[in-house]
């Protein structure tokens, strides 16, 4: 091998090594700033971006509901279609008795959707932080158990662990922990996986080629995962409420 080849190989190895360490640093959840009270409270980047999304959604919902009319026109048509679609989607699964849970589920759907799509703007998606998805899935499992509790009372709720027969009670009990774990890991793993693959593609081909992949990983996959998250949550709720 001549000197040039060796030089190229060394360069390539260095590039890959640099990429590996950069990827690892990307995987950690970063701290944006520190509030200087009580020994300093550190605020993670995902929290700051979540605040941004919250602000955006609050402003959007304030602006969009100005002068509503009986006969919709303009942006009201689109908004009504979107809200109607969400409500129909949940009503198909939960039925009439689950109506009081629609606002929460819809909010989670809109939030996760925005959080997954924000990668398009070049910001870090909050769902790439394991803590965010863990929080969302813990809220989900609490809602699932609460809905069963509310629909059947305490006795019925305890009895639901012995369904369909008493011997399965340990499995049903384990599901209390497996369900949030699986919801959390599914969302986190998908977003992280998409991110890692995108970084690898960008390393190989920095221009033009990442665009179609970005369409798939950032937009399509993000929306599918949003759908799956709320779909599974409402499906588990239905199961708890019925059986």
């Amino acid at each position: 091998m001549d000197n040039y080849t060796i030089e190229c190989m060394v360069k390539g190895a260095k590039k890959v090594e640099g990429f590996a360490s950069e990827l690892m640093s990307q995987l950690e959840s970063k701290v944006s700033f520190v509030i200087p009270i009580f020994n300093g409270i550190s605020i993670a980047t995902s929290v700051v971006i979540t605040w941004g999304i919250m602000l955006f959604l609050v402003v959007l919902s304030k602006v969009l509901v100005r002068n509503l009319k009986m006969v919709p026109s303009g942006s009201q048509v689109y908004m009504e279609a979107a809200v109607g679609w969400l409500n129909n989607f949940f009503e198909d699964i939960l039925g009439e008795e689950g109506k009081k849970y629609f606002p929460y589920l819809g909010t989670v759907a809109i939030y996760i959707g925005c959080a997954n799509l924000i990668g398009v703007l070049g910001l870090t998606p909050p769902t790439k932080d394991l803590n965010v998805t863990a929080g969302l899935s813990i809220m989900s499992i609490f809602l699932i158990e609460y809905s069963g509790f509310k629909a059947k009372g305490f006795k019925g709720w305890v009895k639901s662990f012995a369904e369909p027969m008493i011997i399965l009670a340990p499995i049903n009990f384990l599901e209390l922990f497996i369900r949030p774990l699986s919801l959390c890991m599914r969302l986190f793993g998908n977003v992280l996986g998409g991110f890692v693959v995108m970084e690898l593609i960008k390393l190989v081909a920095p221009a033009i080629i990442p665009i179609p992949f970005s369409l798939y990983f950032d937009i399509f996959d993000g929306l599918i995962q949003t759908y799956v998250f709320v779909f599974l949550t409402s499906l588990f709720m239905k199961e708890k409420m019925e059986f």
Partner: protein
Amino acid sequence: MTTLVAIGAAAAVMTGIGAGIGIGIATSKATEAIAKQPSASGDINKALLLGCALAEATAIYGFVIAVLIILFLK
């Protein structure tokens, strides 16, 4: 040590095989079902998506485990 970590991560990602086969079977059955009964495509799509999400979860677990292996055993 690095080699072992890499082999471990690669073995964890092998879960993708199962997920791929599972999603493939589910999709093939769903297309058959839609071809037989196009009017029920909405319900079939929902069931397919649920099955795909659950099957895909195994692959995702494998990926997460691989990442954890690389992060913590480095």
